[in-house]
């Protein structure tokens, strides 16, 4: 048996003991493309789709617990109220076919610079819970992803859940691509406002080896917003866009040039902030 289909987390760890070289398989939308094109030939596979502990989500008072196998379709349809930025991102992940199969845990595990959910989860200060036979450890998303498709997930570990704080404030998701649907992003941005904490968080994707937070822009705008009126001077909004642009370190590739990406970051960051402020 080279393809294990466990139904419990304990079964996953048993399978990983038995098949130490196994690739983890969630929705398949990333792994199977690599396999189809001959870029990967997994010696064995542990399929996670049936694992009870990895399915669905819980909406708690102050956070949402997304289990790793929650699909983008579930996020898109069920979590619009509690995680509006992530739900908006979900609606742009691939096509309905991809969203029915693809998972939030898979998005993180693949750790693509263009992963649509990652800038939003980054902006929301999501914590990733990794589980292994020995127990669990928790890491901020920013520490989990170390480079292009690189993570600190160790052999024998799986992503169990993603804990996302619930924030009081507007959330935006903006994505630049060649069409609205079914596109790998050229630039992607998630913005979350935390009214209680008086902070603005800006996550950026497709503009660096891993998802970024534009911290200089965030700190600047937090001090420029009139938090009672939820307004900011036009100059400050413009400056926010410039600082966001400076945070990006994009490359030129087949989807877009570095200079276009830098420009687009300024546009989407400014737009996301403007949409979040009172008119």
């Amino acid at each position, binding site marked *: *048996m*080279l*393809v294990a*289909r466990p139904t419990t987390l304990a079964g996953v760890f048993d399978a990983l003991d038995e098949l130490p070289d196994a690739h983890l*398989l969630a*929705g*398949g*939308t990333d*792994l*199977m*493309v690599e*396999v*189809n*094109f*001959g870029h*990967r*030939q*997994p*010696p*064995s*596979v542990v*399929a996670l*789709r*049936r694992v009870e502990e990895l399915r669905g989500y819980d909406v708690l008072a102050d956070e949402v617990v997304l289990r790793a196998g929650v699909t983008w*379709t579930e996020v898109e349809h069920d979590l619009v109220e509690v995680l509006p930025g992530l739900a908006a991102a979900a609606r742009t992940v*691939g*096509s*309905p*076919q*991809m969203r*029915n*199969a693809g998972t939030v845990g898979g998005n993180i595990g693949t750790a693509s610079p263009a992963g649509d959910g990652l800038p939003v989860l980054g902006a929301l200060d999501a914590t990733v819970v990794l589980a292994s036979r020995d127990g669990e450890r928790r890491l901020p998303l920013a520490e989990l992803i170390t480079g292009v498709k690189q993570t600190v997930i160790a052999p024998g570990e799986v992503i169990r859940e993603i804990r996302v704080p619930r924030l009081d404030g507007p959330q935006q998701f903006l994505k630049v691509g060649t069409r*609205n*649907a*079914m596109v790998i992003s050229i630039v992607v941005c998630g913005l979350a406002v935390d009214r209680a904490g008086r902070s603005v968080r800006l996550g950026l994707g497709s503009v660096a080896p891993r998802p970024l937070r534009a911290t200089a822009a965030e700190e600047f705008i937090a001090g420029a917003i009139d938090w009672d009126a939820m307004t900011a001077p036009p100059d400050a909004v413009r400056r926010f866009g410039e600082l966001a642009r400076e945070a990006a370190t994009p490359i030129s590739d087949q989807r877009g040039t570095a200079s276009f990406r830098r420009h687009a970051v300024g546009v989407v960051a400014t737009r996301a902030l403007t949409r979040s402020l009172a008119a």
Partner: protein
Amino acid sequence: MSTQPDPGTGQATDSYTLSVNGADREVTDAWIGESLLYVLRERLGLPGSKNACEQGECGSCSVLLDGALVASCCVMAADAAGSDVRTVEGLSPAGELTDVQRAFVEQGAVQCGFCIPGMIVAMHDLLDRRPDADELALREAISGNLCRCTGYGRIFAAFHAVKEERARART
């Protein structure tokens, strides 16, 4: 089709049972990297699901996996064991057209036809889940089903025809 084991390293095989259109089908000694699309077409004699992009971009391989619309090129066949797989061939009894297929014929919604099986599965999925879906919902539902011939106009016409026919049948 590239979904084949490399001769040098293609030793990783497995055997499993798929439930396809209500029937159990044995898959024996198959390379574990084979997609559901490959197994349906090349091992089980079900060529209705089409192979174009092999990367989840075109939708021509759309099937229902436990009732959810997925691209079968992005499903590892061995991971579909124990799940209910429904292909375009299983939407109606052999030789009969579904209402959606009939509407495509009547509205002239088929040109080269390559994308149509996936389109039919996607449209069934939408109308079965959301009988009142409007055209905007349809556009989003088939946003992952690429048609390069028709310009979609007659596909939308077929959609409206089915919707009206089903609405009449309900009253």
